[in-house]
């Protein structure tokens, strides 16, 4: 079940998605053997307290979240969590966030070489404060600049997590590939809103939130597929995966691995079930590894 994501070999094709697995210390029921790796909750340089409640809202086959990247800051992460990660038998990627390319660079420099940190997942769905709050992920130049800034500070794998709210994900994918990304993660949540009719206001205190869960899966499969068609580096599919069949859709659509997020809230054993289901699917068809799956991936 091992897969190669660029130069890195994962023991299985499934990772836990950022923000849905904390720092990996709180998931007692999951059999860790099923984890190909995990991505930490998004981290900023300095501690952040996050947004006031309500932070989540359920929607049809999905949920909106606005956590506001609550977290302890990079120093506490290095002190409290990295030492544990260094002892685990799967790689931990740190999901890094900033308000400017310089902040991403500083975070990378601080984390590079820390035992336990296996690589970086750049979250480009952050507002670029220097450019009036436009998201890095919506602008190929800003996305490439952030990637480049991180790339220059580390030899560890650098993954870039794409934002879905763009008119052509291929343009962004190619821009960050050219800037040195080792892999792409597609996709982050979609921006959504839900209104509380009792108070005529958004239900989330932050007003908008990110939509995740099965509702977005068909959109995510499409976007991951479009990204995979646009680049030569591996693409890691994310969005609404709850079963092995869901994960297999992403793999057949051109992804090398997948991440599972919201489904683990519903079923703490989801990752193990997806893992075992993929193994069973491959076994029944005489395929020895996920890389042997027939791909639907016409090149543009």
């Amino acid at each position, binding site marked *: 079940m091992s897969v190669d994501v660029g130069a890195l070999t994962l023991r299985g094709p499934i990772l836990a998605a950022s923000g849905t697995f904390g720092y990996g210390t709180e998931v007692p029921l999951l059999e860790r053997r099923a984890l190909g790796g995990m991505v930490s909750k998004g981290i900023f340089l300095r501690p952040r307290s996050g947004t006031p409640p309500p932070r989540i809202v359920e929607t049809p*086959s999905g949920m909106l979240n606005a956590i506001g990247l609550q977290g302890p800051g990079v120093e506490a992460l290095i002190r409290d969590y990295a030492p544990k990660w260094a002892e685990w038998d799967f790689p931990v990627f740190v999901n890094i966030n900033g308000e400017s390319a310089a902040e991403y660079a500083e975070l990378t420099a601080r984390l590079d070489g820390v035992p336990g940190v296996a690589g970086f997942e750049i979250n480009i769905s952050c507002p670029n404060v220097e450019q009036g709050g436009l998201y890095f992920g919506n602008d190929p130049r800003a996305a490439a600049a952030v990637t480049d800034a991180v790339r220059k500070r580390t030899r560890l794998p650098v993954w870039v997590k794409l934002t879905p709210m763009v008119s052509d994900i291929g343009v962004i994918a190619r821009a960050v590939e050219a800037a040195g990304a080792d892999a792409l993660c597609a996709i982050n949540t979609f921006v959504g809103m839900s209104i509380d009719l009792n108070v005529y206001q958004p239900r989330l205190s932050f007003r908008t939130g990110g939509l995740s869960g099965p509702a977005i899966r068909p959109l995510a499969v499409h976007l991951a597929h479009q990204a995979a068609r646009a680049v030569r580096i591996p693409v890691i599919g994310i969005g609404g995966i709850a079963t092995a069949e869901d994960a297999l859709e992403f793999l057949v659509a051109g992804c090398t691995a997948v991440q599972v997020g919201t489904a683990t809230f519903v079923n703490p054993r989801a990752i193990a079930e997806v893992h075992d289901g993929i193994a069973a699917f491959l076994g029944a068809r005489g395929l020895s590894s996920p890389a042997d799956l027939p791909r639907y991936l016409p090149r543009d």
Partner: protein
Amino acid sequence: MFLVDARITGKRLVARDMYVITMHAPPIASTVLPGQFVNIGWSPGPMLRRPFSVYRVDGERIEIVLKAVGVGTAQLLSMTQGDRVSCLGPLGHGFEFGAGPRSAVLVSGGLGVASMTLAARQAASLGIRVTWVHGARTKEDLCSESDGDDLIWATDDGSKGVKGTAVAAAPDADLVLACGPNRMLAAVAARWPEAQVAVETYMGCGTGVCLGCAVPLKRGGYDRACREGPVYRASDIDWATLPSHLSYAATP
């Protein structure tokens, strides 16, 4: 924490529209502490699980108490004996009984009875004298079941017991435990800063990984209702920031 495929074994009416559902969940029944909860999912059903306090334990069974307030609770109530739900728990940090309190007052509003029965029984087993103050909008909404040594009823309309809120009707005691709508708990906090209150928030995971269940703290920042809570020292919470309209119970 266990993930149990739990068979529903019974349902009984305990107040107007308010039911106790019994389910077979041996490992949870044998480990749950007062104030802890379970997170229940089923298929077909809503995507997210729904959190419910464990109301009572009966051998290998646990009980929860609920009303139909939305689609999930309505579906749960339409289930019949033999149906199965996925029950995750016990979850959260419950009530603490500390060293040597001699008296306890339990204040519950509406469905807030949910986390009081286990607490009452635990207190009794520790030799603490328990006064339980039940509040509800009106007589029909008062839960017909209770534990404890003394019982005080309070209704908004005075149709049974004291007219007014449960908080106003309650005596003082060494230990104050409360559960009910967040607005009622704010009143508890004003009267007894040291009270232990079980709060409610929306929950994503129930296991501490999503940070969706943020409880705003007086000292700044947020705790997770599903890990550090749902039981808090009343004075620790920033009541102005804790949403009050999540309340699932009828009384203020």
